[in-house]
C-alpha cells in the first residue's frame, strides 16, 4: 500500500511537471484559438500512451506501475471539465465539441494504443 502510494505520488509529480511544460509550449502555438488545444493534446496523447504501456508491458511490472503513475499526473480530468464550463459561457457549440470529442477520442486513443 505504502509503495503504491509513493509510486503514484512520484509519477504524478513528474507527470504534472511534464503537463506544465507541454501546456506552456502549446499555448504559445495556439494562443489565437479559444479551443483548449493544450489540454486536448495532453489528454488524447496520455490516453494513447496509457493504452500502449498496458498492452506492451507485463502486468505487475514496476515499469508499468511507474508509467501509469506518470500518465495519471500528466493527463487531467479536472481541467478538461472546467475548460468546458468556461468555454460554454462564450462559445457553446465549441464547448460541446471539446467536451464530446475529448471523451470519444480519448477512449479511442486508449483502445488503439492497447491493441497495436
Amino acid at each position: 500500500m505504502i509503495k503504491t502510494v509513493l509510486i503514484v505520488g512520484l509519477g504524478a509529480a513528474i507527470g504534472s511537471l511534464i503537463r506544465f511544460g507541454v501546456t506552456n509550449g502549446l499555448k504559445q502555438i495556439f494562443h489565437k484559438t479559444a479551443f483548449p488545444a493544450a489540454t486536448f493534446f495532453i489528454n488524447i496523447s496520455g490516453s494513447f500512451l496509457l493504452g500502449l504501456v498496458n498492452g506492451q508491458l507485463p502486468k505487475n511490472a514496476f515499469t508499468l506501475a511507474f508509467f501509469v503513475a506518470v500518465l495519471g499526473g500528466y493527463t487531467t480530468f479536472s481541467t478538461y471539465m472546467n475548460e468546458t464550463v468556461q468555454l460554454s459561457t462564450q462559445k457553446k457549440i465549441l464547448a460541446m465539441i471539446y467536451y464530446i470529442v475529448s471523451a470519444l477520442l480519448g477512449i479511442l486513443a486508449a483502445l488503439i494504443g492497447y491493441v497495436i
Partner: protein
Amino acid sequence: MRRIFYIFLLGFIGGAMRGYFTALAGPNHFAATVAINLIGAFVLAFITGALPYLIELSDDLTIGLSVGLVGGFTTFSTFSYDSVNLLLNHKIGLGLFYILISLIGGLLMAELGTHLGHRFEKGVDNND
C-alpha cells in the same frame, strides 16, 4: 523555480492521495476513479474561482495547487483506459455507466464549483 517546486511537491501529494484511495478501493477502483475525478472537477473550480477571495495566494502557489495538487489527483488517461477495459471485457453496461457518470457528473461538479466562485466574487463586491 518556486513554481516548479510547488508543482512537483503538490503533484506528489495529489498523486499519492489518488494512489491511496484507489488502493483502498481494491476491486472497486473504478468507483474510486469516478469519485476522484468528480471531487477534483469541483475543487479546481473552487481553487481558481473562490479561494483567491478567501486567502491571499501567490501565482506560483495557485499554479502549484491547480496543476500539481488537483491535476495530479485527477486523471483523464485512467478514465479512457478504464472505459476501454470495461468495454473490451464485455461489461458494456458498467462501461457505459462509468463513462456517462464521469462526464455528466464531472461537468455538474465543475459548474457547481464555478457558481460558488461567482458567489464569493459578488460577496466581496457587496462588502466594498
